[in-house]
């Protein structure tokens, strides 16, 4: 096995119950992702990008086939093991930011560190670093409702990055942002990818995002259509 391998999917199939029958969202996906990649799943709406990302993120499980994330198989791990994988190794960035509204920017970013039970001095240092990466040190005490969309997404990036996870999964992170903010955020992520060797996997159909990707995995109707490497 390749030590640099972060994700490996083998004949991954996902079916959802639909009315009386079933709907096959992923129809046998074989993929590998190495450490430090900056890769995107690209495809039209309904092609299965989010479904694939969720399974890789252990939020959902495969119907058939196997998904190995950092050496553990998503389909067979317990809820507790899956939670530990997410807590320790994964960062999520969502289209709709999903920040905790009643918490300040600082607290939102600190949250994953609380789950890891780090000491308060460690946490303080790491939160300050993360806020610096995204350029939000001056908005630390504000709450999400007081921030712009771009700022919210930067908080979400800081929250995903603060624990320096091996893998960040970003589902349409720019869908709610204008062009300037999108580029700003993508540049931040590229820099983090280079500085920290964090692996990024996107799901997107946004050309702005696609422009930054080093590897593009095109999905179509639940299948890998083609793979392009820049």
């Amino acid at each position, binding site marked *: 096995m390749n030590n640099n391998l972060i994700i490996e999917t083998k004949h991954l199939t996902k079916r959802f119950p639909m009315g009386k029958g079933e709907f096959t969202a992923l129809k046998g996906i074989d993929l590998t992702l190495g450490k430090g990649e900056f890769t995107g799943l690209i495809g039209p709406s309904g092609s299965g990008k989010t479904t694939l990302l969720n399974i890789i993120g252990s939020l959902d499980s495969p119907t058939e086939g196997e998904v190995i994330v950092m050496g553990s198989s998503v389909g067979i791990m317990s809820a507790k093991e899956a939670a530990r994988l997410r807590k*320790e190794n994964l960062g999520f960035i969502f289209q709709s930011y999903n920040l905790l509204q009643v918490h300040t920017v600082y607290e939102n970013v600190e949250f994953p560190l609380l789950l890891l039970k780090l000491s308060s001095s460690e946490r303080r240092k790491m939160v300050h670093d993360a806020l610096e990466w995204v350029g939000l040190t001056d908005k630390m005490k504000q709450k999400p409702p007081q921030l712009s969309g771009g700022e919210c997404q930067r908080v979400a990036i800081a929250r995903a990055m603060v624990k320096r996870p091996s893998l960040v999964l970003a589902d349409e992170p720019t869908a709610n942002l204008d062009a300037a903010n999108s580029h700003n955020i993508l540049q931040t992520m590229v820099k983090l990818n280079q500085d920290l060797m964090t692996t990024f996997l996107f799901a997107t159909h946004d050309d702005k995002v696609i422009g930054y990707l080093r590897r593009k995995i095109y999905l179509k109707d639940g299948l890998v259509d083609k793979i392009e490497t820049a």
Partner: protein
Amino acid sequence: MKLAIKLAFKNLIGAGLRTWLNVIVLSFSFVMIIAAKGILVGWDRQAKKDMADWEIAGGQYWNANYDPYDAFTLTEAHSVIPGQFKDEIERGDMVPVLITQGTIYPEGRMQSILIKGIDPGQSLLELPTGRLDTAAGALPAIIGSNMARANRLSKGDYVTIRWRDANGTFDAAEILITDIFTTNVPTVDVGQVWIALDSLQSMVLMPGEATILTFRDQENREAGVGDWKLMTYKSLVSEVDEMIKTKSVGQSIFYIILLILALLAIFDTQVLSIFRRQKEIGTYVALGYTRKEVVLLFTVEGAMHAVLAAVTGAIYGIPLLVWLANKGISLGMSSAEFGFTMADTMYPVYSGSLIIGTTLLVMIATTIVSYWPSRRIAKMNPTEALRGKLQ
């Protein structure tokens, strides 16, 4: 758990008005329960203390035939005071009372009464028996204020009483009301005339006899001495316990409704939260919580209403309860009307166990109604929760 508490607190405070409405309603039930129960506890204590002071002291021996609810038993309910109590009586630690049925004729009307004979020198009970010593042309007697009011008798009045002696022969005499006492214990007041024990004994031809022996100290009492049976303090005040129990049932209904309303509001908030905050739930899972931990978080959040309610309740409740305890509460009813030992003004007593018990009750109830809807989270699909699409 510590993190859950911290988060839950933030979330609750963040929810603003809704939280405070729930908390305030819940705190009402908190304060209500403590106030209402406190009144009963205060009543209970006061009633028992008054009974002890005025009537039963540390306990009594009753003549085996005596039944306080049947005046006709009185003709049989008397016997010679056992010799073994002589010392105790002389020390003043035991007070014999002889009771007989009689009739009083205030202003020409006729009224059935109990004539009770007691040692004028006794100090075991608060009855002002010293005034029975007063030498006068007539037989000195004391009565309670309710008896006085009902028969329009005043201090210094002369009035005729009639009784039957041991042989069944009627006799009559005039008594002089030498004192009127005020008590919360109707059973030493309403329909009763107190005179000196030796006078009554000779009037009814029962020398050395009594119906009840009231003693100061209950320790090492024999259950029965001759035809005298022991009535412990506990058994004598049991009717107070019974009455308080009855009252507390009636009272509970009131605040249980209030508590249920508060719990319903919290239940509703929980149900709503779980629907409205699906994305947040999904986010917790994405950040590394298990669904069970999210259930815990939401349960703690709901249960924390009770903590906030305790704090809020304390802020306005403590001054209110202290004020009540000092000022007392008048039920607008006298003990004579109620027929039961009861002060005109009752002073609530709040015991530690009452406060802790109430707090626990409210906490546990709140935790249950918070946990109930939260269990749903454990069945949620995190990806659907994240999309916020669950029905």
